[in-house]
């Protein structure tokens, strides 16, 4: 996607709330016009004083008060509308993005680091919201006021206007010249500051080693040298920026000096009134504004737009298909792989090579093999995360591509490798809102998954919250809750990927016993690291480098004297 279309996308999303945006723009235009009117009123006020005309003064005051109230009201309206626009638009974006992410493909989630996605939703969104609420309108208002002011001044005395405006670019150029070295000094200082921070980071992470090896003097020396570099650069920066500051203040007076000198001369000549001169000064501020603030504001908007683009790109991530039919997991073969070869998108290596097997109803099957052999990939294909490039996967009565993913997953329960808890109560984590605590099934599942054993240690029992990403529980406890969640779903097929790896031997064997004693029609597929406790399974499928190398029960495979025996024995060796 090129830059232009992405940029267009950004503006398109802004137009989603056009009914707030357009009134805001109209109000701001009105506000800018009223600002000019204020300047005009100032001129007539001063003229009436100079001309000692009490009636005119009273009239001018009355008009000024009216204009002033108008501008206060429009100011309030501007801000109010801008808030409605930005806050509503951002809430809309939040929802759209969440919706998209919830349906994103496995591949998408792999490509994007989760921390990155979350940071876009927090930091980039914040920048973007700030820009929508303040910066763009400030920019628009500033430019509008400047244009109006220019028109007013020109129509009143073009000569004075031209003389004053001619001085502005000179000032602009001078300040650019003065400020250009600052950027370099800032970068240098920033770089040494990041060195200093790096040093702090290393001294924190390496705290133990640093003390154990008495490395403190070395680190202190290095820190000091970074610190000195930083000081040198920062001092240069201070000097230059103070120069710029003072210069800025002095230079800001120049246009006013011109107005007074040249304008005063014109007043003496009787060409303009004293009041108009003051109006000139007032309105000159509005023209000078873009010159002073514009670069800063534009820079801010630019970085916010970059943030907005990162945010909105989340709206175009690839999502899972939503079509397909409602199938049933019936028939002799629950799952069948026919000559399946598969590789992950963007990867050269085939993850599965010509894999064929079938699983009958009620079987208990374990996939074994060293890590990276393709076991988890088989599970991902069964769950419909990916479609194979060659061969086909058949679930029940249909090819996997024909199933609706929603329906497919309703037929299977999964325990994934990293046990994940939502930050809701343990009970809700297990039932997912489908059952209540009194349900006999729930009671049974609690004891089957060995949750009862640690329930009493929890502060609020079943009501204990999962905590941020399940942080309140140990790995083993989380695994047991996830197992319970899968059992609770009561599906004909259960997939367990290393579901007991974090458990101690005793708990593991209790859970495996539960699985073994599940009703006979439940089909169970397991991925396991250790073979020994799995003696009860009907069949092992042994994989190596993306291929199925052996298949059969324990005795058969031992007899075969192949990869299985090798795996089994290397794990057994420890017991000799």
């Amino acid at each position, binding site marked *: 996607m090129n830059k232009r279309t992405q940029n267009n996308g950004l503006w398109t999303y802004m137009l989603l709330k056009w009914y707030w945006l357009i009134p805001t723009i109209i109000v701001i235009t009105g506000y800018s016009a009223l600002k000019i009117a204020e300047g005009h009123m100032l001129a007539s006020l001063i003229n009436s004083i100079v001309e000692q*005309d009490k009636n005119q*003064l009273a009239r001018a*005051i009355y008009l000024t*008060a009216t204009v002033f109230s108008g501008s206060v009201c429009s*100011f309030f309206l501007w*801000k*109010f509308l801008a808030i409605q626009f930005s*806050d509503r638009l951002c*809430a809309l974006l*939040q*929802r759209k993005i*969440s919706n998209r992410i*919830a349906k994103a493909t496995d591949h998408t989630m792999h490509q994007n680091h989760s921390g990155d996605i979350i940071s876009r939703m*927090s930091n980039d969104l914040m920048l973007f919201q700030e820009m929508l*609420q303040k910066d763009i309108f400030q920019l628009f208002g500033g430019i509008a006021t400047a244009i109006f002011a220019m028109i007013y001044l020109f129509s009143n005395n073009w000569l004075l206007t031209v003389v004053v405006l001619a001085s502005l670019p000179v000032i602009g150029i001078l300040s650019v010249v003065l400020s250009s070295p600052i950027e370099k000094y800032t970068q240098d200082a920033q770089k040494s500051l990041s060195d*200093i921070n790096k040093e*702090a980071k*290393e*001294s*924190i*992470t390496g*705290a*133990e080693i*640093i*003390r*154990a*090896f*008495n*490395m*403190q003097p*070395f680190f*202190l020396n*290095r*820190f000091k040298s970074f*610190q000195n570099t930083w000081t040198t650069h920062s001092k240069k920066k*201070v*000097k230059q*920026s103070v120069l710029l*500051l003072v210069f800025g*203040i002095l230079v800001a007076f120049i246009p006013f*000096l011109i107005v*007074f*000198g040249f304008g*005063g001369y014109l007043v003496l000549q009787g060409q303009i009134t*004293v009041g108009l001169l003051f109006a000139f000064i007032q309105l000159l501020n509005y023209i000078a504004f873009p010159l002073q603030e514009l670069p800063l504001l534009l820079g801010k908007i630019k970085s916010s737009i970059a943030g907005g683009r990162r945010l909105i790109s989340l709206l175009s991530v690839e999502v899972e298909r939503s079509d397909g039919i409602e199938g049933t997991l019936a028939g002799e073969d629950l799952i069948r792989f026919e000559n399946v070869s598969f590789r992950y998108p963007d990867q050269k290596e085939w993850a599965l090579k010509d894999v064929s097997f079938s699983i009958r109803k009620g079987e208990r099957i374990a996939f074994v093999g060293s890590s990276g052999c393709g076991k988890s990939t088989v599970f991902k294909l069964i*769950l419909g995360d990916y479609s194979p490039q060659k061969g086909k996967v058949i679930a029940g009565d249909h090819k996997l591509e024909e199933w609706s993913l929603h329906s497919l*997953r309703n037929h299977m329960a*999964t325990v*994934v490798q990293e046990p*994940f808890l939502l*930050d809701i109560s343990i009970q809700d984590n297990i039932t*997912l809102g489908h059952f209540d605590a009194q349900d006999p099934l729930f009671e049974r599942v609690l004891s089957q998954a060995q949750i009862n054993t640690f329930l009493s240690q929890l502060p609020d029992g079943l009501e204990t919250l999962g905590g*941020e*990403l399940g942080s309140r529980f140990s790995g083993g406890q989380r695994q047991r809750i996830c197992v319970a*969640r899968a059992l609770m779903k009561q599906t004909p097929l259960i997939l367990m990927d290393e579901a007991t790896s974090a458990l101690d031997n005793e708990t593991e064997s209790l859970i495996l016993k539960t699985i073994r004693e599940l009703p006979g029609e439940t089909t169970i597929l397991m991925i396991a690291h*250790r073979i020994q406790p799995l003696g009860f399974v009907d069949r092992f499928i042994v994989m190596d480098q993306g291929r199925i190398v052996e298949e059969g029960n324990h005795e058969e495979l031992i007899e075969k004297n192949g990869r299985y025996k090798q795996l089994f024995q290397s*794990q*057994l060796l*420890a*017991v000799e």
Partner: protein
Amino acid sequence: MKIERDILKRFLAFLKPYRYQYSFGVIGVGFMNFALTAYLAFVLGDLTSSMVELDQQLLIKTCWNVLIMLVVGGTILYFSAKALLTSTLNVEKDIRSAFFSRLLNSPIVQLSQYPSGELLSRFSNDVNESIQLLKDTFQSLAIMLFYGVGSCITIFFLDWSMGLIICSLSGSIFILNLPIIRRIRKTSQIVQRQKASFLNLFSQLVQGQRIIRYFNLADWIQKKIWQQSEDLKNANIHRNSLETIRETLDSISFLSILVVIFIGGYKAINDPSYLIKLVAIIQLQNGATFLFTILTTIYSEISRRLAGVERLMEIVDMKEEPLTLSANDKHRLIESESGVGLCINHLWFSYPNHDNPVLKDICFHIPEGRTGAFVGPSGSGKTTLFKVLLCLYQPARGSVNFKEKNLYDLSLKEWRQIFTYVPQDAFLFSGTIKNNFEAVCQNLSQEKIHEACEMACASSFIKAFDEEFDFSLDEFGSNLSGGQRQRIALARSFVTDSPVLLLDEATSALDVESEQAVQEALKQLINKKTTLVIAHRLSTVKSADCIFYLEDGRIIEQGTHNELMQMPNGYYRKMVLAGDLIEDPE
């Protein structure tokens, strides 16, 4: 409030060496802000009268005056701003040094109370916030005092009735605003909370995305997110609307300008000489309104930044490790059996503020040159034991003797020189490879480094780099492979002349080639020194002279592999049979 003042006082101690420079800066900047405006106000009066009275001479003279004033004022401003910024720069440097020194020298027990991200954020953000207090907030305060208060006084001086009008108008708007500001603060907290719960929900969505797909939970979580984002939106709109009301009220305070012109205009019509005063008052009136609008900003800024100062000082006020540990009788419980080797007697340790000891009455003796292996379930105290031996944690009681030396008689530095520690994950830091050696031991000869690398099987890959030993490492040495990092860390242990090796064996295997090299290097190291190893491999425990089985902070079994395997109900035997130790591929 008392505590806040106390913290501020300790913080301002950093300013002490630069106090003259800083005060000159702050006062100079504040005063010049007022002086320039006040001067301009009177010049404007002169200019106006020159125009009204058509006096060309006065006009030219005034223009010159303005120019001169600008040059003089600019110069003063330049020096005072420079003094202000330079002195705060120096304070920033000093604070950072003090902070860094705590990072290096405070006891681990204290530092580890804070997550590392927290420490880092204090090091960068809170130092920054605290400096902004000096640089920004105090400057605004000075400007407020000189420019704001000065303008008010001058107006009163020119025409007290006008002063009364201006101050009461601005003041009443300020009072009107106070309850709004309080509510803004309250709603801001609500917004923060709503934002946090939204992000919590969203990160659950992102991190649990697979579960959400597999269990068809998209609609369910979507409903929650919808609700949460609605709440967040409403809170946001509420807060921002209040903010708008405040801004609008502030803008009304310029209403006083109208009143001033109206009353002053009538006065000037009656008395033309009043016009000069009027112009000056209008100009100075800005300062008076500024005084009231800035007041609340400064107040909230000070309280926010003081929170940063407080977090900063919490670290800076930490005590550093003493040079020697004060040994009391508890640490000399038993005069060592004055045997050779490492002798630990009745060692106890518990974390501060925790009742349960982590190490309970640990006693063991490892003769010089021999190897002791420590095994046991995770959390049994093996790693803690190492850390106590390294004096990263101070033992509560018990004695540590090496050869004839009671380690309590040594300085902390000498104590740690007895041991060399090889953790599971090698820690290298950024800089050159050579730096990583020099940090351990200054004035290290090139030969010694070469020799150590040769022994640790690290020479071959180091020599393959163009820069050889000057090859520069990224943070944590992340541009090397795990095995290469491990080997450099091992070589580093060779250059120290420490007689005792504390080795925490890695659980996960490296790539095959590195694995063999690292094992080879380790064998060299173990043979050379008295070794304590936290073992995860069967081969390691088998070759150890003595095995110690720890559980719950106690040594409950000890002996050789064969001895322990013969205990029918032994814990060690059970562990080996369960296959909890890694078998090397032979």
